[in-house]
């Protein structure tokens, strides 16, 4: 078998394998992608909430992507409390200004970062939330102050589409 013939045979087989591999990949991808969120789930990826009836000091809980989201309209005192905390005192240092761009409104996932329970509103030693499962205390900015939770309650992507409506996600 001459050098040339071997190379041509190898090229044919290599080309066949390569083209075949493309087909295998193209076939496998839909089987994997079908497990990704479908169009109806993605359509519910963001939700709009009417907060016009929320008075200062009140919190509502809404469902977003299957999880609870706390929306609290904070009072002046609560905002002041949150802003006055020294970062060194925090397990997960985060400035309140970074968590609540509009200081009057606190929007965060109502899921304890320890093991996922839903903390209770207006409870705990820091005037924020208290998680009854393992005793985590959160402050008026939703930051972890005492207890086993490692991080602050997560702030999702949100924006005010108008003065009365928050779009989450």
């Amino acid at each position, binding site marked *: 078998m001459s050098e040339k013939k071997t190379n041509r*045979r190898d090229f044919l*087989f290599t*080309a*066949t394998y390569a*083209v*075949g591999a493309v*087909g295998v990949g193209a076939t496998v991808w839909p089987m994997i992608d079908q497990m990704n969120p479908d169009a*109806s789930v993605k*359509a519910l990826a963001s939700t*709009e909430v009417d907060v016009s009836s929320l008075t200062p000091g009140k919190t509502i809980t809404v469902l977003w992507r299957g999880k609870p989201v706390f929306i609290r309209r904070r009072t002046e005192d609560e905002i002041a409390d949150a802003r006055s905390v020294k970062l060194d005192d925090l397990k997960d240092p985060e400035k309140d200004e970074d968590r609540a761009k509009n200081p009057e409104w606190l929007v965060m996932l109502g899921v304890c970062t320890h093991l996922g329970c839903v903390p209770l509103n207006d409870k705990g030693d820091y005037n924020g939330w208290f998680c009854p499962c393992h005793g985590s205390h959160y402050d008026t900015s939703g930051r972890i102050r005492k207890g086993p939770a490692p991080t602050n309650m997560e702030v999702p992507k949100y924006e005010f589409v108008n003065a009365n409506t928050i779009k989450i996600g």
Partner: protein
Amino acid sequence: MKNFLRILSLVIVFLATPLSSYAAEKVEYLKTDWSFKGLFGKFDRGALQRGYQVYTEVCASCHSMKYLSYRNLSEKGGPEFTEQQAKAIAASFDVTDGPNSDGEMFTRPGKLSDKFVMPYENVKAAQAANGGAYPPDMSVLVKARGGGVDYIYSLLQGYEDPPVGITLDEGVHYNKYMYGNKIKMSNPLSDGLIEYSDGTNATVEQMSKDVTTFLMWTAEPHLETRHQMGFKAIVYLIILTILVYFSMKRIWSRVETKV
């Protein structure tokens, strides 16, 4: 090879016949050009948008479209309204939601994620309001009728006086293309019935074609993707087949007396 072709032709003949057996009425449907037919068929966006208008203004008062969501109106491959337009359409309908914190159901403006609102609560309500006949849901209607788009297109233009000797019951109409010729739906279309927002002249034929095109899309929203992917898949397979064929010849050349 000869035998294979013999059998293949027999099979095709036998397969083709049962498929047409349901045109038992032996009526030739009205023919027109459908932009979505053929290997490279695509939907005419204008027809889809006009068809949606016909559906909304003429049919939706009785016929539900329950498997469609408002967001489908702005998705690729369909009428492709802008997202703004689709949102506005959705918001023009009242959707039942709830229960609220008082335990009651309430209505709110529709969102993109909502399914099309149904004209009646359920099938029985629809029957009660239509003399016992259920106006079928239209989501997959085109696929649910053997004659497909040609049948729907013809039926919409097929209303005429019954032939001599045929008397119809109260509330029953004669239609040339309906299976059995008797239909409880009165003629839904007439020239100029609606005013198309794009200015097209709304003749019965135009509306029939547009709404049927729309119904083809509601039944097969991924038709264009399917055609495009199909073309690529078959071209790919042909290329790979050729490569494998030559590989096979190369490998088998090592065998002295291949039968």
